[in-house]
């Protein structure tokens, strides 16, 4: 790695102040499982940083708080291991627990943070489709104050986010789930573990009181477009419908069409498209079944 300076602030205010003072060329450092590898191997999609600002000690990034009527506050600094294990996440936002638990080895999960995963902005990020399907927003704090950004507006391209210089993603807000709802995230990888997702799919569904129609359907896809994306046409086709096999199959086919994968080292476009169809169908079935039982 080439030289850089490193700062270890003890509070969010201190962190923001460092960015303001030092100017251009700084990056926040959370778990480092993406950033450090990129600095070593050269895969960074931004200019090599002059300085890093560690977020490790910031207490403001460690929230894990359920508020009735408002939903879950989830600190960006929580590790994948913490998110995967947290009852508050597994109980109501299981897709996110799924994603956090799939990110890589145990070693990776112990260091990587959900905020880092989101801010690294790989199209294949495993917490991204769940956060999209769960309609999360990001609370961002910077030198100009704070703002709330829905995650659909957060990713601008591979490695590109809406974060401006000096801003830190502090926490996620996940709205309260509807009754009779369920969410799941799965991904396809060549090995059982340790790989980047070739395709990732998250679904979140809610049934009406009687269990006869789908009040809400959210389908989010990873690794099949420049950013994580929602399959909106598929969602629209299924929402309000009875969850029959045909309706599910139709939605899966639409999701397959909406995906815009490229062919690369990890899979061809045709293969990815095929998987989107297969996985969307499977996950919809499973989520609907779970929603029924909840």
């Amino acid at each position, binding site marked *: 790695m080439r030289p850089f300076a490193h700062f270890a602030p003890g509070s969010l205010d201190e962190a923001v102040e460092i960015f303001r003072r030092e100017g251009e060329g700084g990056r926040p450092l959370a778990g480092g499982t993406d950033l450090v590898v990129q600095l070593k*191997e050269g895969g960074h999609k931004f200019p090599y940083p002059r300085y890093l600002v560690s977020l490790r000690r910031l207490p403001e990034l460690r929230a894990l708080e359920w508020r009735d009527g408002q939903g879950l506050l989830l600190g960006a600094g929580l590790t994948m291991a913490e998110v995967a294990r947290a009852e508050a996440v597994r109980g109501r936002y299981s897709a996110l627990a799924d994603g956090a638990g799939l990110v890589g080895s145990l070693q990776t999960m112990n260091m990587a943070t959900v905020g880092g995963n989101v801010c690294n902005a790989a199209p294949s990020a495993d917490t991204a489709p769940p956060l999209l399907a769960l309609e999360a927003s990001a609370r961002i704090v910077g030198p100009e104050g704070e703002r709330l950004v829905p995650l659909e507006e957060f990713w601008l391209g591979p490695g590109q986010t809406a974060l401006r210089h000096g801003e830190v993603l502090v926490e996620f807000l996940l709205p309260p789930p509807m009754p009779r709802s369920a969410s799941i995230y799965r991904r*396809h990888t*060549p090995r*059982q*573990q340790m790989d*980047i997702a070739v395709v990732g799919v998250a679904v979140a569904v809610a049934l009406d009181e009687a269990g006869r129609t789908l009040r809400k359907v959210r389908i989010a896809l990873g690794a099949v477009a420049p950013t994580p994306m929602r399959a909106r046409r598929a969602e629209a086709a299924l929402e309000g419908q009875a969850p029959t096999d045909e309706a599910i199959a139709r939605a899966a086919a639409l999701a397959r069409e909406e995906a815009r994968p490229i062919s690369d*080292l990890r899979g*061809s476009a*045709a293969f990815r498209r*095929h998987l989107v169809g297969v996985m969307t169908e499977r996950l919809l079935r499973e989520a609907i079944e779970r929603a029924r039982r909840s």
Partner: protein
Amino acid sequence: MARETTARPQFRHVGRPVDRIDATGKVTGKTVYGDDLRLPRLLHVKLVHAPLAHARIRRIDASKALAVPGVEAVITAADLPPHHVNPDARAQVLLARDEVLFYGQPVAAVLARDPYTAAYARDLVEVEYEELPAVVDPLEAMREDAPLARTAAIREADRSEEQGHITVEAEQQQAQSRPSNVSSTITFRRGDVEAGFAEADAVVEGTWRSAMVHQSYIEPHVIVADYDASGELSIWSSTQAPFHVRHEVARTLGLPEARVRVTATEVGGGFGGKIYLYEPLVAALAMCVRRPVKLAMSRKEDMLAATPAPQAVVQLKAGMKADGTLVALQARVVYDSGAFPGAPVLPGCLLIGGSYKCPNLDIQGFEVLTNKVSVGALRAPGAPHVAFALESAMDMLAQRLELDPLEVRLKNAVEKGDPLPSGQPYPAIGLKECLEAIARTDIWRERHRSRQRPNRGVGLAVGGWLGGLQPASATVGLNADGTINVTVGAADITGTNTSFAQIAAEELNVPLEMVSVVTGDTRTAPYAGMSAGSKTTYTVGRAVKLAAEDARQQILAIASQRLEVPVEELEMEDGVVRARGQPEKQVTFRELGRLTTGFGARYAPIVGRGAITARRQAPGFTAQVAEVEVDPDTGEVTVLRYAVAQDVGFAINPKSVEGQMQGGAAQGLGIALFEEMVYDEKGRLLNPNLLDYRLPTARDVPPIEAIIVEVPSEEGPYGARIVGEPSIVPGPAAVANAVADAVGARVFEAPITPERVLRALGKLQD
């Protein structure tokens, strides 16, 4: 899980499962590997790797790199001390001088006080290249109009290392006259294949492709060298072949071997990929700066610029009669050697015709040069590629003729006396016994029941390896306190030093704790060949046995004089020599130790000597079976159960032998399902890392049942034969056969990825 071997009452140590003597150091982190060595004023080397697959070097400007504080030198080919350059031998092109032949080829070396500084400075070295056309695909490279991978034709290919892996008398023809990327060919013929096919009731054919695969030892290459004022060159290398390294380095640098000392540091995995590569370069760098230098390659550098196994394209046509007799085999085997010759065409072509009796053979092999990193040995080099084709074809034939795949193999399996394609007859071998062992496994016996579950299948495959032959020697000495020292020159890659302790303790009838085994360096140890070609126990073990026997004779001779009892009436047990029937007449090893080493000692020190030549091979065969489940919609293949049976002649340490079998089988699974080095159309390696070059993890490999089969060899110690290599061979074929059994579709390309399974099932529309 592995089965217990039955105890052998006639032996005290050999044949029993013993803890590896080096295990405690390894589990505590005490064992010293190359990168753990600390030398004063050590300089760290980072190589500049060419970013083009084929180019002329116009200019190298190191000024910016040299300006970095902590950088001591930047060396290019022009700065190296005079040395023997052979442009056709990979290890004798220390740094590319005029022509870059593969992406990642080293063109300069930066030497600095710490590795971070060296890496930083490395990026500041400016090299001007003139890009040349690169040829990347081996079949493309064989065409008449293909660009040439090298501007000058091969004149002096160096195939000396190959004989250490597989010793066979057969001639590889250097391709002549017209410049071409085909650098050598080989042909084996027997009988009349056309007549054979006419006779056959079923004929199958296909083209099987195997990807380029990396040894992926967890420890990347690491070499330390020091050249001092008196002209002594010291090399510490993670190598399987210290004597070979000494010989080659001395030859290349024009030094006498007696002034070159090579120490094999503990090897963190070799698999044939750590024989001899960068030692001459690192030694030359030490000579330039007259300070110790260390090259510790990163994973990326190792994947770019070491010596992986070749990709291969095997066209095979096979014919069989309705009663299951194999009557004709016709094969065209192409190995992509990368930028330098050295592909395993010979073993591949031998072994494709080496598993089954077959009266009519027509085998043609081609070694093709391309602008990719040049290849080297990887555990049974060349064999998995041809087994993939042959064993798939056997299953296709069995299916076509409605015969049992195991019975069909038993029917045709080679036995003692059957000829290899080269004509040489097999000695005693155990292929049939391995098949019979697999037939008795639960996996095989339950296969019909397994198949009733949807998308589950069972597949079987066999393979073998001939093994290398090299001379070996050893010494066994009695210390002043009666303990025993065994000294060998063979690097302990697979636990062989533990086996040598067992052998020496067996011959001297002492507890294992009284014996210590050490691998000396090339100045202090007696010669041994490379620890490769599966022959370390087979050759060095014999030498240790002889040396221990010699030591025993010397001990008895002295004891006989001391006790005034004829040698025939003496017994030796637990470090005591006593007269049979007169237990009061005894002398201990400790007393003998004093008598042979103290001041004014009456007797000469006891140094047992063993030296052997190995003239006869003891080939090892293996049969393996896989049970898999395939997801027909995603193409994912899960290996549920796996068993490997291998004939090892006599397992000196069954625990070690099982570990070798399981390890090799797991590598076979890696090649079968995940591993592939991917080059783009410009010859750039796209996945030089362990994220996108996928080694199987614990979640991918089920517990592997290891069944030791023992058909004694004629020459090995206690009947042992080669051990290390055969187990990697059948993996890809066993998996392909199991997948075909599970979902009715056959994949002809390894690794058998989910995408390839889906394509075979016709499920992907492009």
